[in-house]
């Protein structure tokens, strides 16, 4: 009986905090307020651009999200999982679909910031001298992600970063007004900072080939078809942090 009472006591206390009814006692108000403050602080850190976009509505969105999706983990950085999908389903944001897309981008950036470190495998470049291209495959940076959007997510996100150059405002306006807009992004981290690069469709498709494990020989065939030099492509892929080196197939 005592065990049941104790189980019940912990469940009851937590349920009351989650319900956050009005006119609660002073103590309950503290616990309700603490939980909300922890959530808002965490989400502000995880989704700073979304916070800019939603303004005063951000806090309400966060509190509604955790009310409908009570967090299970003690790792507060994981509380934001699912927030982007949830935003996509909100009726109030139907006319603003880029909000959810920016949330998705920021979540992916956060995931890469927290991921295990990777480094470029310089010795593996020696394999280019030792094996034929058909015997090699490109090693993709596991701290990289590819995205393509039909909304100017990258430009909107970039506009809210400190590094934004106001001379790019023209590009932002054009992309928002373009009904045929499409963007391809590579998000990557080699050192500490996660970078977001806009790449073109050819680069995107070639990286998909790398991710599939296609041989370097197949990639070179494709590069030849689109009239892009291997060395130019290699330099670009290293710059955007998409590849780490080579391995034998």
């Amino acid at each position: 009986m005592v065990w049941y009472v104790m189980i019940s006591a912990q469940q009851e206390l937590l349920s009351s905090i989650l319900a956050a009814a009005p006119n609660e006692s002073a103590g309950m108000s503290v616990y309700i307020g603490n939980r909300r403050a922890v959530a808002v602080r965490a989400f502000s850190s995880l989704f700073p651009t979304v916070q800019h976009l939603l303004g005063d509505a951000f806090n309400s969105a966060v509190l509604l999200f955790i009310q409908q999706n009570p967090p299970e983990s003690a790792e507060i950085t994981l509380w934001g999982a699912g927030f982007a999908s949830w935003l996509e389903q909100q009726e109030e944001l139907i006319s603003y679909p880029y909000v959810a897309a920016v949330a998705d981008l920021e979540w992916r950036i956060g995931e890469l910031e927290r991921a295990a470190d990777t480094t470029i495998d310089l010795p593996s470049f020696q394999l280019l001298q030792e094996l034929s291209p058909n015997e090699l495959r490109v090693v993709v940076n596991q701290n990289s992600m590819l995205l393509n959007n039909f909304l100017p997510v990258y430009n909107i996100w970039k506009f809210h970063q400190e590094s934004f150059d106001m001379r790019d405002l023209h590009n932002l306006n054009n992309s928002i007004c373009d009904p045929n807009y499409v963007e391809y992004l590579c998000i990557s981290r080699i050192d500490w900072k996660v970078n977001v690069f806009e790449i073109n469709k050819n680069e995107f498709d070639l990286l998909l080939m790398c991710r599939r494990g296609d041989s370097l020989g197949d990639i070179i065939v494709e590069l030849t078809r689109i009239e892009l030099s291997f060395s130019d492509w290699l330099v670009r892929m290293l710059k955007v942090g998409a590849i780490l080196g080579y391995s034998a197939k």
Partner: protein
Amino acid sequence: MKHFSNDAVLIGLGLKNQHADQILQSDSNLPDFFEVHAENYFNSGGLNHAVLKRIAENSRLSVHGTGLGLGNHCGIEDSHLENFKRVIDEYKPLLVSEHLCFTQAVINGKRIHTGDLLPLVRNNAALNICINNIDKVQNAIGRTILVENICHYLELDGHEFEETEFLNEICRLSGCQLLVDINNVYVNGTNFSQQGGLQFARHWLSQINPRYIGQYHVAGSSDSTVNGLVVDDHGSQVQEDVWALLRYAGQHHGLAPTLIEWDTQVPDWPVFALEAIKARQLLNGLVRHD
């Protein structure tokens, strides 16, 4: 390691991101150890680990957990414990600690996190649950853990033990030690005791078995209250009453590593570092020179 003090007591400060640059560039006036929250280092890699590894080259660390839930009736989550162990194995801290509270409960078949450190009903069933959870943690990490008394904002019914009695029993039965958070006791006394914070805390401290004390925490609370309750927000410098209680604890129970917490409205590094100097001066004054 060049920043160790020759003083009798180890003084620590909570490690804050905004102070990292100054800590790494500083050659002097560093505390004896830095405390980090375990959950902030559950990620596999990234800048926070790189910075902590650099700091750990010249400073010792204390790893302080906030999410294990030593009082959870639903038990300790295995994945959380694995992550906790990984941080301890990686950084080999001087001290490892957690809180005596519950942080998860099962609601509608799902383990839900409380978002806060919630108080326990102190009865025999809870005692057994805590012992089992502490045993599990100590076995997993291969070392003794320090268990911290929390600040609470509700007075629960059904207690069979006074808080100090409960803490002493937990240490006796599990082999863990205590992290005595003096500010938490003071705030509880301020909020709920007719005697007021200072007198309540002195009595509370006198009831703790000194051989279980492994560490002290001190902190300040900002002036804001919520519905009349002082909130333990670690948002100011340590108050005079709390320094007095630390002196009292040192005089009556002996010295132990002491950490100053400051987690909200965090000041610049020199202001924070001054708190460590105050603590050292206070506690050095208690050292007996035989």
